């Protein structure tokens, strides 16, 4: 289990990226949801030993992540939000390099591991190509392959599906779900609610450097049972309805607008019909709430 206590981080520019972050993460896939600029990447970088928090601690399997950086790196698999590769090296040379850096020195073992990794990420046919010619999806899969080297117990993937086409995204989901089955803690940082909804057994929502909630997706949806309502109304009514009700989402099509609102147990008005709650409702309801004073 990964335990994070009282992480606080303010950048030299004065931006306070994290405020008293406390989290407990069990093995399995953990989704960290939040809008852009919420502090997800800062938290991921701290856990990946690339950034120092101003205060706070993190512990996993008896290792203090902030203090024992070498120990942390030994059990870490990290796929950053934005990363590149040496364009002139082949995929095979790249994986061998990372395997050596991770301490896999036996030639036969390393070759077997690299073969298996290429199989798992379905890049065997491209292993001898220079990575400079890879598509975004292929690069991302090579990225997850390097993160899986050496049975990492803590895997951090930061916004891994951003920019991938739908087919690549499915493929990446498959990869992540297979990885999560290996008893590791997998932290998936994303702003795509559907990714967390699909993949994660636990989740937390972060906004403006604060953890708003830590919950399971099912619990989140259960909290909104009988509270979500949907209506299709003329566009001109939207402003009035938004001022009266807690609208979580609206979508325009033709001259109409489709609204989803949250109203606990009471039908907001005649136009609205009950709707099945989804994780997006919970997320938008949470992040759109007014920031608490102080």
């Amino acid at each position, binding site marked *: 289990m990964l335990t994070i206590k009282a992480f606080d981080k303010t950048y030299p520019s004065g931006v306070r990226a994290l405020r008293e972050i406390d989290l407990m993460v069990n093995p399995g896939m953990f989704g960290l949801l939040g809008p852009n600029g919420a502090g997800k990447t800062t938290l991921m970088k701290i856990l990946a030993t690339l950034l120092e928090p101003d205060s706070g601690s993190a512990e996993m399997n008896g290792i203090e992540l902030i203090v024992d950086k070498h120990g942390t790196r030994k059990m870490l698999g990290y796929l950053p939000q934005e990363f590149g590769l040496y364009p002139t090296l082949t995929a095979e040379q790249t994986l061998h390099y990372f395997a050596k850096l991770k301490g896999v020195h036996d030639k036969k073992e390393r070759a077997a591991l690299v073969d298996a990794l290429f199989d798992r990420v379905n890049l065997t046919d491209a292993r001898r190509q220079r990575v400079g010619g890879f598509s975004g999806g292929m690069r991302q899969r090579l990225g997850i392959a390097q993160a899986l080297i050496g049975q990492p117990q803590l895997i951090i993937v930061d916004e891994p599906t951003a920019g991938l086409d739908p087919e690549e995204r499915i493929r990446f989901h498959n990869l992540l*779900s297979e990885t999560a089955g290996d008893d590791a803690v997998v932290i998936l940082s994303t702003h795509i609610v559907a990714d967390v909804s699909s993949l994660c057994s636990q989740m937390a929502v972060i906004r403006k450097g604060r953890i708003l909630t830590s919950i399971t997706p099912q619990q989140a949806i259960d909290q909104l049972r009988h509270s979500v309502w949907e209506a299709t109304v003329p566009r001109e009514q939207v402003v009035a309805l938004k001022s009266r009700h807690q609208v979580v989402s609206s979508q325009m099509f033709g001259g109409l607008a489709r609204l989803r609102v949250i109203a606990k147990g009471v039908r907001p008005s005649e136009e609205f019909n009950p709707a099945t709650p989804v994780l997006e409702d919970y997320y938008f309801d949470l992040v759109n709430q007014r920031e608490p004073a102080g």
Partner: protein
Amino acid sequence: MRNPFRTPFGTIFLNEVRINSKRIAPYFMALLCAGNGLLWWGWGPATGRGLAINSDFVIAGVLPVYSFLTLPLFTALFMADPVSRDFRTGIDPLIFSKPISRAAYVLGKFFGNFFVLACGQAAFVLTWFVLQAFPKAGVTTQNFKVVPYIKHFLVFVVISHLLLAAFYFAVGVLTRNAKIVYGLGVAFYPVYIMYQTVLLSRLPWRWKLALDPFVMNRGNVHDRRVEWMNQLVVVYDTDLIINRVVVILFSAILLTILYQRFTISERPGKAEQLLVLNLTAGAGGFYYDPPIIKPTLGERFVADHSHEKVLLPNVIRTTAGVRAHLRQLFAALAVEFRLLLSERSLVVIMSLASFLSILEVAFYNIPADVSHSAAYATNTAKLLLLFLLGMTVFYMGEAMHREREVRIQPVIWAAPGPNSVLLLSKFLASLSLTLSLMVLVGLTATLIQFLRGHTPVELQAYLITYSVILLPSIVFMTAASLVLNVLLRDKYLAYAVSIGTGVGLVYLYSQGHNHWLYNPVLYNLWTYSDLSGEGSGRILIHRLYCVALAVLFLVVAHLCFQRKSTRGLIVNGRLGGFAWAGLLGLVSLCIAIGTGMFLVGS
């Protein structure tokens, strides 16, 4: 009248200048040219002969030689890939979908890059122009001059390189392969010398002049009196004007051919390999990205297990201990070498450095005080030092910031390798590169010595000179460059500081402020006799001082490296990296102080 910079041609021209202004190569070239100018000013052919360094005769005489000796390789480097770069980076459809003509595109690219090239070349004359204000003993100057610099630069340098640039550019555009142009650039000297000796030497003098793009066959008036030469006003005769017109005409023809043959269509190539790659096995069906309003209703994603899950084999990992760190270092070093080998500029820079370092021993008679080998080794070692400094600064900067630039840094920094592995791999790769240049120059010099009949070839002389003088200097410069890059954290700032410091120190040394304590490369402080005679002890102690300083720099770089490592002097019951670095730093500091005190005392 329409502003020319608002035409498509002007826009492309300006954009090329802007792109080049963000590259290091133009500045590097300008600095080399300026350094070259400084050397030719203070220690060139006019020095000590009474010839006025800013006389019309000297300027017009030196510029064709300067243009021939140092610049053709840079011309190849600059003109090789301005167009193929657009195709490589994939910006070509964005450009060609705009209303621009092929002529505007090709000419904008050509003249934009040629302008930058000419600006870099102009650093030489600019240096000469500025140096008129700084009198130096042994250098005769006349009244302050402006026009001859501009006039002769345009006639003897710019026009000569116009033809060469048009040729390299045309080859680069039509083949879309920069390496071919680099190859042609390297082949320039043998080809040109053959052209001179085989073809031009048999022609009448006027034809010789007309067909020589670098104007190397002009008449020689060096046998006249110095006063006469200082008063000479160089007038361009008809033959020279015809020559220059022919060169411009040929350039125009080349560009016209290029315009005719240039196409913007995609060429079939390796990209097709990506198209046949089978990537579909992982996907089980079509993906439907749910809109916010009708999402997946909280359904769990079910992984596609239609294919068998690939189990990863268990492996033994060792990341602690000297052996593990050495293996990691070798791995990192291997990658550094691979990346260096793919560095295209290496071919040009190495060739240029080798050629210029052996130039004197190849074409002039070097007085042999001790022996021919000693003279050859000493001469090449002194000439090579400047190139070694330039290469160290340039390639170390590239290596140190490469990870950040290609955005692989977070992945590498999250791996369990110690900082020493990351830093030493850069240090050793850069060191090996400069050492290979040293070996290349040494071997070439011995070969030239043998071919010129200056036998016997004594390898020991080369070994002693290079290992005692060059090797510790390279170690020092590489370590200094590494620590600068770590401390300043900005490549361009590190370049500027390194070159500024280098130039400043050379200036101080040449002004007589030259002491062993702050001259780690022994610039102007040794002769070959010192290496084997009584002075050898002092030189060896200085070399030890120099290496101790280098180790100290490495320790400082390790301690200040941006990537944080495990805190504490004792880690898991053992001395940690910081403790080892501290100890090593302490020892090297003691050695540096001890040897430094000896040098002051003696």
